[in-house]
């Protein structure tokens, strides 16, 4: 429960509290769980093509349920009575090998917003923000091993990449009716990423981090109403995750991998006409579990992920508290 706010007279002479929050966009806060690790078989990492594979198709569906939010003090606050806020996403991804150590990928979500309040119900849909990525593989051979015989067997797979997020979604600055139409943030973002993945069967561990910088954009419309033009730049974004997995092999050498992951998302305050917006800035922590089943040849990977953010104080700031259920399938082309 949020603290009681005293009547304004009580604030005379008090230290002014600076509050922070985010511009609420209901999409893209949870990195979509794509299938296939560097070895094939699946982990909760980015859309990464297994080494030596030619291409990969990935389709997944997310169901994201909103359950309150964290305020700028990190206190969890419940949603209004009678509300049911959900978002469904169909995510499509394609990864392609560009060179022996280079791969590229594109992703595009289609978003369905389902907002129900006691006196208001709005169901909208549209494409979300797409991404284009390029990854460099800083290793020459598959690094997944069964036994550690020498120090080389300990070498992880290291990927370094860049992602451009393209504002193909509907933002508050498009010709929208209101905030319920929003499916994207409305700004380009460049991310530099690193992914370190090591498998010593049956165990796997991976660490991913990305640092993103939004490009400044002009704004001349808010929720469909033209306003005096200004420039806006969202704050820099840091996304990190750490995961541990265990793989079980069937007699037919199909694999079932269970992965537990912990992720932290932080975004700095935005700038409007160069001035810091102290009401912006976000953070969120979440945990997830992924089950991935891969066929014997690792060409098909089926995945189920549940991502959970606790409805408790201290797990986020200025951000909706959500749980996400993802089901997906990937097909690797050799």
């Amino acid at each position: 429960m949020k603290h009681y706010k005293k009547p304004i007279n009580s604030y005379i002479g008090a230290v002014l509290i600076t509050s922070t929050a985010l511009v609420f966009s209901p999409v893209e806060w949870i990195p979509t769980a794509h299938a296939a690790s560097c070895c094939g078989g699946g982990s909760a990492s980015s859309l990464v093509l297994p080494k030596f594979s030619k291409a990969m198709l990935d389709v997944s569906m997310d169901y994201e349920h909103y359950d309150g939010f964290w305020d700028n003090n990190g206190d969890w606050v419940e949603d209004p009575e009678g509300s049911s806020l959900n978002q469904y996403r169909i995510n499509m991804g394609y990864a392609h090998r560009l060179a022996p150590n280079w791969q590229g990928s594109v992703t595009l979500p289609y978003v369905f917003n389902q907002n129900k309040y006691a006196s208001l119900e709005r169901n909208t849909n549209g494409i979300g923000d797409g991404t284009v990525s390029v990854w460099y593989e800083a290793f020459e051979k598959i690094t997944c091993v069964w036994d550690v015989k020498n120090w080389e067997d300990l070498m992880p797979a290291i990927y370094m990449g860049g992602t451009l997020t393209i504002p193909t979604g509907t933002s508050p600055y498009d010709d929208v009716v209101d905030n319920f139409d929003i499916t994207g943030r409305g700004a380009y973002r460049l991310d530099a990423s690193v992914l370190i993945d090591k498998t010593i069967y049956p165990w796997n561990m991976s660490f991913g981090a990305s640092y993103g910088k939004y490009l400044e954009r002009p704004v001349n419309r808010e929720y469909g109403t033209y306003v005096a033009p200004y420039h806006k730049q969202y704050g820099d974004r840091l996304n990190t995750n750490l995961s541990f997995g265990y793989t079980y092999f069937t007699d037919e050498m199909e694999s079932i991998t269970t992965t537990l992951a912990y992720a932290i998302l932080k975004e700095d305050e935005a700038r409007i006409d160069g001035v810091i917006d102290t009401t912006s800035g976000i953070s969120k922590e979440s945990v997830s579990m992924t089950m991935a089943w891969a066929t014997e040849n690792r060409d098909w990977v089926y995945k189920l992920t549940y991502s959970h953010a606790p409805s408790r104080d201290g797990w986020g700031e200025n951000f909706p508290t959500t749980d996400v259920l993802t089901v997906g399938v990937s097909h690797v082309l050799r």
Partner: protein
Amino acid sequence: MSYAKTLQQLLALSLLVFGLGACDLKDDLLPSSSDQRGAVTTGSTGNMPGQIAADFTIKDLNGNDFILSDHLTGGSNPADVVVLYFTMWCPICLSHSDHIYTNVMPQFLGRGTVVYGLVDYVSGSVSATYAAAQANGYVGSSYSILADVDQAVLNQFNGAMGITIVIDSDGTILMNEDYRTGDTLVQILDQQLP
């Protein structure tokens, strides 16, 4: 293999459909900095800055009527400025309303009279608005918490989450835009208040 081909075709088709859908999204892909605001006839009734706000009645947390004209010149409880903030009790809404509460209100204490209204357009009843205000820590605060149960006020001002309305004592709209940093609100209050 045919399964894979079908999947590829579906992906290609989807990308095409989505691509077509993206054609009207150039506001984000190629955002414009040109001022597209239309001309406003001063003194006309409407929701744009420079226009006169039509009178409205809305319930407060006690079930009493909050009537705009009561807070204008000649009304029963006149103010120098009326500030309305549209909230759906979301993170950005709370951050903005907290910012008004802790940063803006104290700056103008003792300078004229300002009515700060927090307009809840999602809860649907006074009792639900009360519960939401309580969960967000505003019961007993200096805000007038207003229950826009049928979104009449929201529609009147073409409002949305975070939209802030400022109305002077003559009923003229001075601001109708996103709260952003709060600087515009502060500037307007500074100009309007004695």
